[in-house]
């Protein structure tokens, strides 16, 4: 209450968005952070308000997103008494925060807030939580704010060691079949230009993780596509043929590596990473370069010889041709009746000139969107990677739109995830955020259904959804929209959505058994990627 009372006097200086649910607030803050690189901020009241933030905090932790979450708390004399709306949010959030702190006196506030922003945004970013007791909020102090620039026990990044760079450069110069894997670290460190320079000087093909998407333009000749479970055929297949893997700002997630014991068997491994705890965590490295990706790549580029790997790059293109024939054409330009997710994604990308911010939820539509949406600019892909949080899309899109007010934000969401945070349509409407919501509706929890189809003999156990009339719901919130179910209307419908002044909800009825391929089955090696069932 006291914090909000103070906000009443600062409505010009502080832009505050009232969400309908605290989960909406935290995902909104994430969306904002991801497109701006700045810390997203959210408030929640004590007890249930605070616990409702938890999913978003966990999501931000695993996806290295800077957040400052501020929660209310009962007055300090009541701590530990099971008072009304008391929850031990500091205790509960320990495993999912980079740092948290409970403030019980007003004098602690300036330093705690300064440290919170410093910790959230430096090194490997992450969420921090400050819990403010009611008496600390009511108290008074002589306010003096000093920016935090260092903490004795915290080393955000180390200086890049020139010896490590030299050792890496030697491996790179000697490699015949090198492959670059880049992740979110490129975007966090703003190392897009350095990555491009490195790739172009060495001629090494580069593949991206889900979180690294948009750091390198889709059409770059050395961009060979997406890694992992639903990634492209080439980078998965050829990981096991590469003689050198150069991993930058990524953490060898299990969706990327497949079966670890068979991963990149023929390759030496270079790992460029800011977080020392990631080195050798999953994959044993031959050379590790600790530090900021931008600085490390700059040094590395200066130390390597110019090179070309045309025959090797050509192997990726051969794989692309196979994937194109077996999967991509059918997804993007289907001839059978029934709309595919792929064609909807392709048209949305084309109609926005590949310049939109894409925000996705989790599931089939997410994988399809990551595979087929094209990007020219970095910080354009907002998705829940590590945690895989359904319900992420709609509130994250609203935060992304606030962070990038002049860009088109396309929120691509499935019918399952949409209904998890659908109430944020109210926030979008109230704040007139012109988010373009593309609801890919197959009336199923599609990814689970796909697995049931492929691995559980089509036993569709509790994955079918009897959905409401989404357009009426949107209209109830004051958001225009319509439904499309015919191929001949798809393009004009997407155009209408994009041209609409303000938020718009386009429901696209998708073929029920539209699946995502290629696929690395769980527990299989990445080179055992399959192209069709």
């Amino acid at each position, binding site marked *: 209450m006291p914090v909000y009372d103070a906000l009443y006097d600062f409505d010009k200086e502080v832009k505050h968005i009232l969400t309908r649910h605290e989960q909406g607030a935290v995902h909104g803050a994430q969306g904002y952070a991801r497109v701006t690189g700045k810390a997203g901020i959210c408030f929640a009241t004590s007890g249930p308000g605070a616990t409702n933030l938890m999913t978003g905090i966990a999501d931000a932790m695993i996806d290295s997103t800077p957040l400052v979450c501020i929660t209310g708390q009962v007055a300090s004399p009541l701590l530990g008494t099971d008072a009304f709306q008391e929850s031990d949010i*500091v*205790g509960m959030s*320990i*495993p999912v925060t*980079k*740092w*948290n*702190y*409970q403030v019980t006196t007003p004098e602690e506030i300036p330093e705690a807030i300064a440290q919170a922003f410093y*910790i959230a945004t430096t090194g490997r970013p992450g969420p921090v939580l400050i819990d403010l007791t009611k008496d600390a909020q009511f108290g008074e102090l002589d306010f003096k704010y000093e920016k935090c*620039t*260092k*903490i*004795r*026990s*915290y*080393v*955000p*990044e180390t*200086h890049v060691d020139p010896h490590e760079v030299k050792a890496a450069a030697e491996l790179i110069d000697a490699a015949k079949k090198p492959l670059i894997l880049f992740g979110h670290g490129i975007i966090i460190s703003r190392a897009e230009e350095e990555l491009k320079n490195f790739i172009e000087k060495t001629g090494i093909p580069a593949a991206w993780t889900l979180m690294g998407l948009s750091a390198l333009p889709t059409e770059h000749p050395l961009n060979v596509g997406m890694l992992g479970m639903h990634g492209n055929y080439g980078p998965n297949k050829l990981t096991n043929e590469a003689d050198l893997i150069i991993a930058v700002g990524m953490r060898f997630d299990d969706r990327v590596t497949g079966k670890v014991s068979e991963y990149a068997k023929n390759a030496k491994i270079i790992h460029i990473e800011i*977080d*020392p*705890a990631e*080195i*050798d*965590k999953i994959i044993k490295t031959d050379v590790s370069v600790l530090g900021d990706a931008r600085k490390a790549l700059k040094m590395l580029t200066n130390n390597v010889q110019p090179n070309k790997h045309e025959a090797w790059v050509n192997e990726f293109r051969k794989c692309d041709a196979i994937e194109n024939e077996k999967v991509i054409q059918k997804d993007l330009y289907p001839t059978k009746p029934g709309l595919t997710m792929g064609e909807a994604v392709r048209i949305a990308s084309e109609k926005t000139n590949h310049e939109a911010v894409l925000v996705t939820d989790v599931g089939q539509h997410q994988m399809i969107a990551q595979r087929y949406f094209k990007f020219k600019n970095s910080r354009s892909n907002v998705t829940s990677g590590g945690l895989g949080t359904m319900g992420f899309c709609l509130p994250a899109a609203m935060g992304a739109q606030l962070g990038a007010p002049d860009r088109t934000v396309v929120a691509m969401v499935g019918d399952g995830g949409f209904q998890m945070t659908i109430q944020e349509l109210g926030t979008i409407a109230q704040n007139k955020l012109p988010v373009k919501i593309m609801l890919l509706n197959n009336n199923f929890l599609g990814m689970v259904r796909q697995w049931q189809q492929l691995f559980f003999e089509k036993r569709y156990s509790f994955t079918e959804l009897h959905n409401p009339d989404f357009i009426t719901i949107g209209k109830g919130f004051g958001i225009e929209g319509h439904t499309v179910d015919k191929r001949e209307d798809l393009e004009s419908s997407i155009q209408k959505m994009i041209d609409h002044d303000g938020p718009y909800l386009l429901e696209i009825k998708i073929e029920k058994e539209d699946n995502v391929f290629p696929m690395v089955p769980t527990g299989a090696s990445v080179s055992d990627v399959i192209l069709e069932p």
Partner: protein
Amino acid sequence: MRQEYIISVYSENHIGLLTRITNVFTRRKTNIDSLTVSESAIQGIYKFTIVVQCTQAMAIKLVGQIEKQIDVLKAFYHTNDEMIFQEIALYKVPIEPIYESDTIETIVRRAGAKILEITKDYVVIEKTGHKEDTQALFEELNQFKVMQFIRSGRVAITRDPIERLSEFLKERDAFLTSLD
């Protein structure tokens, strides 16, 4: 290969840090055999001594994840032979059977233990040593039906000539200044 490791952690003294540190073990389903926390030689810096059974690979990961915690200054892992360590044990033994036996004095003397307190009902004996030693004394004293027995967590120092904490802090300060 699983074996016993001693993990030493130097940290700031902040509320909640103990949970943060133990949580690193919980998440990796690693049981803590013993845990001792106290202020180090430098005021305000606390030392955790944690004993675990795990592989070396796991010990390295645990230390990496512990050091990642914002309020942790430094963490190390050591095998037992790299450290000098002790635990303390207290035994409360009823007085009556002791009166009837003449071996107690020999047992205490041979074990290098000492008697802390004698009352009309019991004797309290203290022994410092490794777990095997304190356990052996327990077995021996139990012929008199030990009433209470308690063993502390481990305290340990490295075999290195000096504790390098103050140098480490100086280096850390210089490093942080170099980042400005």
